[in-house]
């Protein structure tokens, strides 16, 4: 009995194997044929192309799809914007718009005193420029300081480090409009914060109805929403600093502050540049979050450059696309200037 049973089992296994194999083989063959077909189709196109263009020329073929997308959605609108900046009227299509030369730029720059918007012809533009300036300085300084502080804290072996890293990053995942609405519910006249203040016996504060308060909160919520992203970048920079340097410094008797000043800060500088440039550019472009939060008000207290461009072009009773395009050229110039300064400083820090 014992001698007969094992061969029976092995036969069964073989049968199973062969049936499975019988099933898989054609499927595998089908996939292989499909794969060959696709590759051959690609080859069918690529081989003659390569014969014609050469190996170097093929690089352009591979770049072409991306270049097309970039061209259609970035370069073409930029050129169109440039054209619009020198045209007038209210018609939408370029062929219907009269050429006015530098009139739009002159309108923007007609100012008695550039520091007093009331003396400027397009006072709202200069209010927006000054608001943007104030916002950029305050937002970037607080953003960098708080991101650095939180990165330094999260780089230490604190309890619940994983949780805190996630918690700090979480607001970054929210849409700017969601962030704005959440904070609006908290800060409006009948909002959560005023409810708390009244419950504690205080008087309601017009957080969104007072110019200074609105400007402060615009900065606060943007710092809250974006800090996690920059903390993450700085954290990566901190973790790239070799631990041996701190060991050596501590053996030499350096205290925490000295280690931070002499090791952490210098070695973090390249990362810091990236963070500063990214946050600066993003701050200059501020729009969606604050627009959903305050609508640019009260008055024009939180109207920034992009909102001016949007409203001049698309939301006023008369759409002045030319003036809006000219304002966006001015803004592009600011951004170009910022990037050039960063590149220069970045090169200098690379050399040192």
């Amino acid at each position, binding site marked *: 009995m014992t001698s007969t049973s094992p061969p029976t089992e092995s036969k069964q296994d073989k049968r199973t194997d062969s049936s499975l194999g019988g099933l898989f083989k054609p499927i595998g063959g089908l996939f292989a044929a499909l794969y060959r077909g696709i590759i051959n189709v690609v080859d069918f196109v690529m081989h003659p192309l390569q014969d014609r263009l050469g190996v170097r020329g093929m690089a352009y073929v591979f770049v072409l799809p991306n270049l097309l997308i970039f061209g259609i959605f970035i370069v073409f609108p930029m050129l169109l914007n440039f054209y619009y900046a020198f045209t*007038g*009227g*209210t*018609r*939408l*299509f370029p062929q*219907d*718009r*009269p050429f*006015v030369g530098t009139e739009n730029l002159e309108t923007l720059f007609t100012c008695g005193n550039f520091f007093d918007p*009331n003396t400027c*012809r397009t*006072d709202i533009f200069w*209010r927006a420029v000054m608001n943007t300036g104030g916002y950029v300085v305050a937002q970037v300084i607080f953003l960098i300081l708080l991101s650095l502080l939180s990165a330094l804290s999260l780089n230490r072996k604190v309890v619940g480090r994983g949780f805190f890293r996630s918690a700090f990053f979480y607001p970054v995942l929210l849409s700017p409009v969601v962030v704005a609405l959440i904070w609006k519910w908290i800060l*409006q*006249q009948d909002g959560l914060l005023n409810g708390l203040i009244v419950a504690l016996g205080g008087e309601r504060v*017009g957080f*969104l*109805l007072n*110019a200074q308060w609105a400007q402060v909160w615009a900065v606060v919520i943007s710092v809250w929403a974006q800090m996690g992203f920059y903390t993450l970048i700085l954290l990566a920079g901190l973790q790239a600093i070799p631990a041996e340097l701190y060991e050596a410094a501590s053996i030499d008797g350096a205290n925490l502050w000295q280690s931070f000043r002499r090791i952490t800060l210098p070695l973090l500088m390249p990362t810091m540049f990236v963070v500063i440039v990214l946050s600066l550019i993003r701050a200059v472009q501020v729009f969606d979050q604050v*627009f959903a939060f*305050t*609508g*640019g*008000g*009260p*008055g*024009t*207290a939180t*109207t920034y450059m992009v*909102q001016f461009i949007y*409203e001049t072009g*698309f*939301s*006023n*009773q*008369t*759409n*002045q696309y030319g003036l809006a395009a000219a304002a966006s050229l001015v803004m592009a110039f600011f951004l170009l200037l910022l990037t050039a300064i960063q590149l220069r400083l970045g090169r200098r820090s690379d050399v040192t």
Partner: protein
Amino acid sequence: MKKVGVFLVLALLIIGVLGVQAQTEPVELRIAWYDDGNEGAVLRDLLDRFEADNADIRVVIDTVPYTSILEQLPLQVEAGEAPDMARVSAGERYRGFYLDLRPYLTDPAYWEESFPAAALQWLRGADEDGTEIHGFPNQFTVTGPYINRTLFEQAGVDVPSDNSDEVTWEQWTEAAAEVAEATETYAVAIDRSGHRFAGPAFTQGATYFDEEGNITIDTPGFRTMAQMLIDWHTNELTPAEVWLGSGGTYAPGAPFFVSGELAFYMSGSWQIGNFATNIGDAFDWEAVPNPTGPGGSTGMPGGTAFVAFAQTEHPEEVARVMEYLASVDVYREFVERTLFIPGHQNLGEIDYQTELPAAEQSLQVFAAEALKLSDQAYGLQYGSNAFAVNNPVRDRLTQAIIGELSLDDAILRIQEDIDAALAAAAAS
């Protein structure tokens, strides 16, 4: 040969199926629409009936916020992406893009007889000899105030209009302030809109237009009303959220009135449906006549038009929908159920479908107000340069309220903005 035969049979079958589908698939028409109250639901109901009798047409209502009609629709239209039809409040803005319905209408003369010439002309443009038909006014509105009578009673303050036919803005403000103080509510509010501000300004003696139609904003009457608006904010008589909490867009004061926090609310007849639905008889509310002043007593005319765009691919079907909605019975039912003041001249007796005395009384008040509108008010609504006025008034006065500009500077800026807008429009 056999293969060719099979292919031919298959091809014929496919063509046949597609042909049948093409025959049975109804034409889809889209309407860009916004709601103040229940009018979207009423329109849907009326169109459902239309579709039941016209299986070849399906009408989709795209309901969007009012600000989208103000800001997005003009771009959409100019970019060549217009809907087939729309409800618009700035009829003059789409001149040149409308469909001329006359070739598709069974009786164009009906339209000329049924709707006011000024309303049809509003869509045509400056050419006074034009006879095109682009749509019809589906609502006539008049601006005017409402009061919360319950709050007046709770405060023990007499309603000024109970004792006098001529109550000034100053008297209303004083009475409403007393009510607000006694009931811990807001005294007075006006929608954040240059259109809404205009009626009170004309009442105070402002004139925007001279005899040639040129616009001059700086008049004593305008200053009086602007200063009053600023003072309401300074003295915390008005909810600051309306003018200061909405950025650069239109904002209604209605939420404060509906929630019973406001004694006197300057808005217009289109709110009746909203209040009937959302206040009902929760407290006693009613419309009161526009205040009186050196400029008389006037609100602002307004309203919306139901229009067709030339970009439609189905002009015949569009005309059939328009004819249906403009027909006497359907139009009458629409206004009876929405509590709208009609823009149709020959509806006969209207039996508004409300048992709320407040709604009935308010409709009567606004019907009377419609007869009192001044020439300046009509000029601002239908004049060819009027489009440039309302937004600068709204935005610059907001700057004066918040203290960014003095009233003098605000008035100067309003004039400059209007001139710049007119120059830009002229350049096109």
